[in-house]
């Protein structure tokens, strides 16, 4: 297991807290993403627990691009990864964020 933690700037305005959203499952090649509101002073935090060590750089790249697509202000995102490819990680994160905001970007 490896735990990685990343923080990103949010895009200004603080979001209203909504109900937490959970998508995906922790099975081989897949991952679980939990999105919830948190008081983070306008920043976003992503905590990754992954079964595969040594891919910190790729996580950084994937999550930076994700933060570029969505406003992560005051969001805590927890990831439990069982060896998902970057493609699956990106899709699951986008699905979770879109679900959290219900289409509101």
């Amino acid at each position: 297991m490896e735990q990685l933690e990343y923080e990103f700037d949010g895009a200004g305005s603080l979001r209203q807290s909504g109900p937490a959203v959970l998508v995906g499952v922790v099975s081989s090649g897949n991952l679980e993403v939990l999105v919830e509101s948190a008081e983070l002073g306008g920043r976003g935090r992503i905590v990754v627990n992954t079964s595969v060590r040594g891919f910190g750089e790729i996580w950084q790249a994937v999550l930076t691009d994700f933060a570029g697509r969505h406003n992560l202000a005051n969001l805590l995102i927890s990831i439990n990864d069982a060896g998902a490819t970057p493609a699956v990680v990106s899709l699951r994160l986008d699905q979770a964020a879109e679900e959290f905001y219900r289409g509101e970007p």
Partner: protein
Amino acid sequence: MALHSCDTLAQNRQARLGRARTITGGKLLRPEQVTELLEAIIEPGDRVCLEGNNQKQADFLARCLSRVNPENVHDLHLVQSVVALSEHIELFERGIARRLDFSFSGPQGGRMAKLVGSGTIQIGAIHTYLELFSRYFIDLTPRVSLIAAQAADAAGNLYTGPNTEDTPVIAEATAFKNGIVIAQVNKIMDEVPRVDIPADWVDFVVESPKPHYIEPLFTRDPAQISEIQVLMAMMVIKGIYAEYGVQRLNHGIGFDSAAIELLLPTYAESLGLKGKICSYWALNPHPTMIPAIESGFVKSIHSFGSELGMEAYIARRPDIFFTGADGSMRSNRALCQAAGHYACDLFIGSTLQIDLAGNSSTATIDRITGFGGAANMGADARGRRHVSPTWLKAGQEAQGRNSSMPRGRKLVVQLVETFREHMQPAFVEELDAWQLMEKTGMDIPPVMIYGDDVSHIVTEEGIANLLLCRNEEEREQAIRGVAGYTPVGIARSRSAVENLRDRGIIKRPEDLGIDKRLATRDLLAARSIKELVRWSGGMYDPPRRFRNW
């Protein structure tokens, strides 16, 4: 008066048949006579076609040939499309065969690479299918062909059943150049259901102890289709099929294209595309096409071969498939390859590696796998003259404004996830094919689809339209721009990629208006083999290995 003898082949044929008469007086052989007959008929150095298709295999005849005495039968030159059986390789290991011209070697690719490396197998060339079949009529005509059929009558008329595949082209090339044709059949009948190969093309027939092997090569279990594949299929349907109005096409094998097939009755239908895309196909009868056929998407399918379990369903859908007077399908690999090359506007398929020029290859350093059908399907047909809106639009994009001669071109789409299993990147700076070339002494690297034939690359990150790229640098950045988090993708120029995106050369799912929340397995028209059976009204009878009930 002729200066040279002009019937040596006919004389040689008579000599061979004369030697055979010491073993059998007629056409019908008993299984235990076959090895002896092969020793009598085949001469050292002969060109031999041992029918190996990508599905049907003349496996009994292959076993008999592998048992001949190498002192009598040796240095054969095998000319056949597929090298799939262990016996095929044993022929080389035992010194019975020396030289090989072929197209595809899927399951034996690893052993093949070793034996080529040690000089035990000498490869003439790895061909595309049409190229090899063409050479049967020019400079690689078989002297002896060992073929497989479903049934024969006592006169030697052959019924191939739905898996006709390569048999007609092999039998014609051999029989009409005074060669010898020997067929293994599953059974001898008083009357065959239909005549696929006439008796006077066939010299000997043996009822094989076991029915010939057929590989269900084109069956993909929908249960294994991933959400990424659903997302990529959505992009293909909306960003390419709808965009170009693709009506005539071929799909390669794989879960990526199976996902597209299963999205036709759901996603494509919801976009109002029924009747506007995917009506006419050059395609094996993929079980994953059943929902699209039953939903009225498909007008016609011509096939290279058949598919195990689909026989009864096909027979009940003669409007869609090409069927004989007996009701069963007739396939033909040579004709379907020609159809796919000249009469289809699009090919889409997967690959293992793509380089920065868009060249793609399925070769790896220790496996010689050959090409399969993608190489002919995935090449622009330079001999084409008829026009379709799809072909013209692609041609206009490729030519830009600076050409005075209007000309269309084929859409050739490579559909890959940026990482394969075990985090192997699909995008590379240099194809493994170059190393394989060095190691095995080939003249050129085995490239399945050349970059200049590729029109689009689709990954989970988006679509790169290579037709619109105006120079090699743009092309390279377009490829990097969909290469995701592979080293090739990470090394992109972000500004160049954003520029390509502004110009519509790269399109992301959000640029296409695709809601990623819909990219789930719920969008598949069938999510399991059992649901395919249900769609077929119980007529699809899947092979046992695909059943979990």
